[in-house]
């Protein structure tokens, strides 16, 4: 029962707006102590897991290239490109991007796009440029940029589980194996397809509604 204190630490630490890294570290310590581990054992377990999951933090190697290209005008160029496409709308652009993201993630290519690789340098400026054309004004830049990032996440999350060798599928297989249930990764990935379709419909509808609301702004 005492180990639940670790969860309480997370919830409370976040409510009180402590630095999240600090909250996570304290939660690990509290949980470990509550389970009867000594502090050094908790530190070692945490350090080992941190070292084993370094791949999570690799993506920032793209920043030098993106930062440099922006210095030479990449974002502005992306906006100008969309400004020349007369029929491009924010919603249609983002629907296209969402489907691209779902399909590529479904074949295991989830690192080819993302907030640093594609959304900041390309997708967000393009969506903004389209929104400016639609409203004939400021284009609600905050809302459109947030929606661009949201679309990237939705496309990724509800595409990747269709791929049989993705981490979450392998994790499920591993957990089920602990209970003597042997299951093919392919079988798990098939069951991700209905939700992928539902995600495309729900988020696609919202993007079309975004177009309508941008259009109303103009009128």
């Amino acid at each position: 029962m005492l180990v639940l204190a670790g969860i309480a630490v997370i919830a409370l630490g976040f409510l009180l707006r402590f630095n999240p890294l600090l909250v996570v570290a304290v939660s690990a310590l509290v949980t470990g102590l509550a389970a009867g581990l000594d502090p050094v054992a908790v530190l070692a377990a945490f350090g080992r897991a941190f070292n084993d999951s370094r791949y999570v933090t690799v993506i920032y190697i793209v920043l030098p290239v993106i930062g440099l290209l922006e210095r030479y005008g990449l974002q502005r160029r992306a906006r100008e490109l969309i400004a020349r496409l007369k029929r491009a709308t924010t919603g249609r652009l983002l629907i296209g991007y969402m489907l691209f993201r779902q399909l590529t993630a479904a074949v295991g290519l989830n690192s080819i796009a993302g907030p640093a690789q594609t959304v900041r340098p390309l997708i967000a400026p393009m969506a903004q440029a389209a929104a400016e054309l639609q409203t004939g004004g400021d284009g609600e830049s905050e809302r459109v940029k947030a929606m661009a990032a949201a679309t990237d996440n939705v496309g990724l999350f509800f595409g990747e589980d269709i791929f049989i060798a993705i981490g979450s599928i392998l994790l499920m297989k591993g957990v089920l194996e602990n209970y003597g249930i042997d299951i093919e990764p392919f079988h798990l990935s098939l069951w991700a397809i209905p939700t992928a379709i539902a995600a495309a419909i729900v988020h696609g509808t919202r993007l079309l509604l975004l177009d309508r609301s941008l259009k109303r702004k103009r009128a």
Partner: protein
Amino acid sequence: MIGLNFVYTVAGLAFAAFALSALAVRPRKWANAAFYLLIATSFLAGDLLGDVGNGVLVLALVALAASGRMRGGEAREGAVRPRGSRLFLPALLIPVAALVGTLVFKQLPAWFDPRETTLVALTAGVLLALAVCYAWLRPGTAMPFHDGRRLMDDVSWAAILPQMLASLGAVFALSGMGDVVGDLVTQVIPSGSLAGAVIVYGLGMAAFTIIMGNAFAAFPVMATAIGIPLLVNGFGGDPAPVAAVGMLAGFCGTLLTPMAANFNLVPAALLDLKDRGGVIKAQAATALPLLAFNIVFLYLVLR
């Protein structure tokens, strides 16, 4: 064989360059430089530090983040002549190299670690794009790392929150969190009610993901608590949809939580949103209907 060792070497050198860049600006950004140097050390020498050594490294990272001394990216200096549409080519080179490399490297298992082809290909794509930029734009050796470090300063400590949460999950597992939660939540389900069990399972996946920032951490807890003992063994459900749809219910939680920093806070920082919660707000109206869909769908499949 080329695998994570290559990827980690490049990442370590990139963070070392960020650290040097943070020391080169005036006024110097000591805290940022120390933070990047520690990450560089982790990438380059993490396997040599030992478990406790890595733990101490994490404590130092946490201390720097909590000190409040890390600074955001400064304004860009030095005007250059803007270039045309060819700027897209190096930017697109990275995803294209990741795509082509993933497919090609898989055919060469003797040379490339087949489990890590996408990360290796992505890294190779970044190096290729950087080489193209140097040859074409001639920005000076340090310029890409100054520009990259400015973006990194905006992301700041949030960069390692996902890695921290993954490590927290390991400590939770070691401490037997799954069994404790299982004992607790089964008490709120009316006995014999499939609908009740599915609802608690789906909502539990989402809620635990919101707390942990990661559906991977929530799944073992909820599978141990409800998925296997009740839905599969109790109601005789097919384990494949129980696992797959449960995980996707967790993903709906990922869309709703600031703890999933890499998906929700980092993009807000990268896109200069005034509201750090802006991405989560944009996702809520997609996540909630999808969570409901997953719960209803799983119920209909298991019924």
